[in-house]
């Protein structure tokens, strides 16, 4: 390769990395600059341009990739303007898909007639499908945001006057939401009343031979668990009442919540492992044509709900433990 070919190859390689619109102009400018450099070197050293001189000059310029990069502005698939929204959407979609996947797994395990030795391949297949679904969802979201990045006009830097008094208050993790706490108390009290004093409401009603017939939904096994459920719900009301009084989370109430969640996990695990909480026999004895299918559906729903409760309790426990064990950084303003 002679010196001219070497320069042309160098310029060509830079051009390949550049946008077509500017390529020829930048190539001409780089070629001209290299020739200027070589002319100057040749005069300084008193010898004609040779291969060694060209190699040295091109090394000084830098690799073609480096030079091409320096002519281009930073390019983003999803730029800093859209990234926070993109990240929010990804988290929401993944959370929803995660919950749906757990419900699906719950249903899968609760299907009657599923042999134990079939479970591992079924589980692997389902997990594979869930993983593929997550990747596909992420890919579609990235695609949509990449298009938005190119289509939406770039927002000019906001230069509005800034008033620190209008800043939103920093959320206090220790502060308790009164509305949420009251709502939780009401729901727990309602559930206690319903399951203990009006269990007949928890039934399936239908017209049979011209008469309204009701069949209890839950089995005797379920009502065997009721004292423990009552205990957990009752303590839940006590915990929320304490929180309402304190207005903030304290280590004691957090440990109380952890203990309740662990109790819940233990109880739900026993319920999942034990006999069915659905009154399957009662449904079948009703003689209703759809009883068999209905029993199967209710069984699946009950298992799905129990699995969901189990997961939520585990997440709650982990959150409370994290808040209890994390190191709190000192407040520099308060210290000063």
């Amino acid at each position, binding site marked *: 390769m002679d010196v001219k070919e070497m320069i042309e190859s160098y310029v060509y390689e830079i051009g390949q990395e550049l946008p077509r619109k500017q390529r020829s102009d930048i190539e001409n400018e780089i070629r*001209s600059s290299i020739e200027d450099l070589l002319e100057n070197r040749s005069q300084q050293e008193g010898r004609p341009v040779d291969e060694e001189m060209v190699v040295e000059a091109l090394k*000084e310029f830098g690799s073609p990739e480096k030079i091409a990069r320096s002519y281009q502005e930073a390019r983003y698939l999803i730029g800093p303007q859209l990234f926070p929204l993109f990240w929010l959407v990804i988290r929401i979609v993944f959370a929803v898909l995660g919950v749906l996947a757990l419900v699906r797994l719950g249903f899968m395990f609760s299907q009657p007639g599923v042999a134990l030795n079939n479970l591992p391949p079924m589980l692997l297949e389902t997990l594979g499908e869930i993983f593929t679904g997550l990747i596909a969802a992420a890919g579609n979201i990235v695609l949509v945001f990449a298009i938005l990045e190119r289509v939406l006009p770039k927002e000019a830097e906001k230069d509005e006057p800034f008033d620190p008094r209008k800043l939103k208050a920093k959320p206090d993790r220790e502060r308790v939401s009164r509305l949420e706490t009251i709502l939780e108390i009401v729901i727990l009290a309602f559930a206690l009343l319903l399951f203990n004093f009006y269990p007949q409401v928890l039934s399936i009603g239908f017209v049979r031979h011209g008469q309204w017939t009701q069949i209890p939904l839950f089995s005797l096994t379920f009502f065997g668990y009721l004292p423990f459920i009552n205990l957990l719900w009752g303590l839940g009301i006590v915990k929320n009442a304490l929180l309402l009084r304190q207005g903030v989370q304290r280590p004691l109430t957090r440990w109380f919540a952890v203990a309740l969640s662990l109790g819940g996990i233990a109880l739900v695990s026993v319920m999942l492992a034990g006999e069915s909480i659905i009154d399957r026999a009662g449904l079948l004895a009703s003689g209703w044509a759809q009883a068999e299918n209905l029993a199967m559906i209710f069984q699946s729903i009950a298992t799905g709900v129990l699995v969901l409760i189990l997961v939520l309790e585990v997440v709650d426990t982990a959150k409370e433990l994290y808040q209890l064990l994390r190191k709190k950084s000192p407040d520099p303003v308060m210290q000063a």
Partner: protein
Amino acid sequence: MEKGTAIENVGLELRRGVIVLAALSQLRQDGYGYSVLKSLSEKGLEVDQGTLYPLLRRLESQGWLRSDWRVESDRPRRYYALSPEGEKALQQLIQEWKNMVVTINKILEE
């Protein structure tokens, strides 16, 4: 990050802003890329080719420089010169630089 690299990066950041001022100051009269590079080097400011040439194009695209191709002794060269807008920008940047030198010197002498 290594200590040496961190210092180099801060040094590069410091030089980046100054190079714009230095390059503009050399283009009160027409000049081509290599002539600006050489002129800065002779005055003690070494600038990388990969930094200066793209910078000249960016300054042109923001309207501070104008350029045209000229053929001299069978060699095409792109000549740059300050635009009227670039003249104004240069004056403001010079003032900015002088203020900054005074301020930083005052801080460093404390």
